[in-house]
């Protein structure tokens, strides 16, 4: 069912361990997604602005980042006419109201809290790649669009 296209994720995450869990979860999901990872905000903006790098299908963004914080990166992506159409999913340990509200105010596409439970983490990442990879593609690009749209 996810055979139409390979998904390219950009993972902006400073914590090596969290990055490792997320990447392994994304890649174990039968389809092997392509995941590029950057460790801080500066690298993320460099990656997105650079000519040669491929454009990601989904950006996974941690909020607590050194140098340039996650909220700032989100604001910059959504303010950039070239980048604002890329879906941004915040993936963070913070379930604070302020962070959630601030992220949605800056037009985040989804806000996910990293669960302290491996099975739920795994489930979250699976749904993430299904949703943004399958359900959310343009109709023309996926003729075999499944009918049960609730994930």
């Amino acid at each position, binding site marked *: 069912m996810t055979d139409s296209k390979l998904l390219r994720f950009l993972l902006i995450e*400073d*914590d*090596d*361990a*969290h990055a*490792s*869990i997320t990447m*392994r979860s994304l890649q174990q999901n039968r389809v092997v997604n392509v995941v590029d990872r950057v*460790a801080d905000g500066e690298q993320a903006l460099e990656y997105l602005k650079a000519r040669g790098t491929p454009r990601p299908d989904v950006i996974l963004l941690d909020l*607590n980042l*050194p*140098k340039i914080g996650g909220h700032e990166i989100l604001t910059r992506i959504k303010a950039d006419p070239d980048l604002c159409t890329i879906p941004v999913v915040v993936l963070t*340990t*913070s379930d*604070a109201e*302020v962070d959630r509200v601030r992220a949605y105010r800056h037009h985040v596409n989804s806000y996910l809290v*990293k*669960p*302290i*439970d*491996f*099975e739920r*983490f*795994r489930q979250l990442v699976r749904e993430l790649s299904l949703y943004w990879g399958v359900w959310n593609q343009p109709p023309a690009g996926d003729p075999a669009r499944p009918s049960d749209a609730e994930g």
Partner: protein
Amino acid sequence: MTGRRDISFQRRLLRALVGIGVVTAALTCTLLIGFHFVTNRRVARADLETQVRMVAIHSEAALSFDDADVGAETLTAFRAHPAVVWAALYDGGGDLFATYDPLAAVPRGVNLSRLAQVLGGTGYLVLRADVTSDGQHLGAVVAAYDLSVVYNRLWRAIAMSLVAATAVVAGAVLLSLRLQRSLTVPLRELVATARRVSVRGDYAARARKRTQDEFGDLTDTFNEMLDRIESQQNELRRRNEEMQQLLYTVSHDLKSPLVTITGFAGLAREDVAQERYDQLEESLGHLGRAAGHMGRLIDNLLELSRIGRVRVRPEHIDTTRLAREVAAELEPRLAQHGASIRLQPDLPPVYADPVRLRQVFENLLTNAIKYGTGSGIDVIEVGGSREGDEARLWVRDHGPGIPDEHRDRVFTLFQRLHKTPDGTGVGLTIVAKIVEISGGRIGLEPTPGGGATFWFTLPSPSALPAEDTIEEVPAT
């Protein structure tokens, strides 16, 4: 039902003052009028008695010689007294001998007690004097005195008293209104201010001081109280915000290693189930590091909370000796990084808690070893100088330095510029907290030529008295 206490102070004051005015005026008037009336009456009576007696003496001849004309002539002496409206001379047998009747209105033989009905007026005083000659009764003189003169004077006195009383009461009301203003205006102002504080929570509200009297003092005291409440309120708000921030960061930073631990535990379990062992080593490494990080985090947080609870009792410290001891303890770590510490030999002495100051040096030097080395000049310098009542100390590295835009965040809890496995983001917060409670300031500036210089100030020993105990304050 409204009792006395339910009526406003203003109204009670007015009532009291008007009441006192009315009672005083009424009492004064009654006494004055009574005295005036009694005196007048007595004077009039004495006057008439003399007159009647005089006429009686002079009537002796007329009665002796039985000459009615002379009798009438004698009675005309009453003409000198306009209030005498009627007089008569009676002979020894009690028969009317002669009359004095200037109004010509009193019929013969009228009952004298009914004179008021005949002549009108308010009342008459009738006096009688016997006419005697050598002890022999010849007859009597009777005269009627019109009391309206006395009553007229009485009415005039009453009228004047009423005017005076009204003036007194009006004066009392005016005075009370003025007094009221001076009493109730500042009271109302205080009430309004208190209400603004209690209802709207506006702790910046202050009552205006209008007078230098007791109300002025009350207003000052009230405002001082509000000053204290306001500053306590602000302090409370600041502490609360700090606490919120702490909770937010603590929950995030404590959750983060838990995500790692559960994640890698799950991945490792899967690997084992699928008999894939190539990544197991890495998973277990992550697990161990995350658990270790969490332990350090908890240790540091406990340390930070201890700084807030333990009262600092400072003493005179030989800073050079203390810094040298800390540098010696850090020797293994310095060797690891190929770095060295250069101490200024005459660091200014400070007045601080030695255990805490040791921690400040430890954290700043560890920080410099961790983040300020590896750029070629791996010498960490410690120096200082005395500036007035303060000693200013600094720890300088020649590492990559800290960009201007991050300078403010350095002392904030859990703010890290570099992710290192053993950094928790609490060390510099502890340093800043210790310096703050020791009465100093802390800051960060770039080292000329590259690197970071952390400086802090502490009181000099001479500025404060010496004491040397640390007292444990029970946790709340």
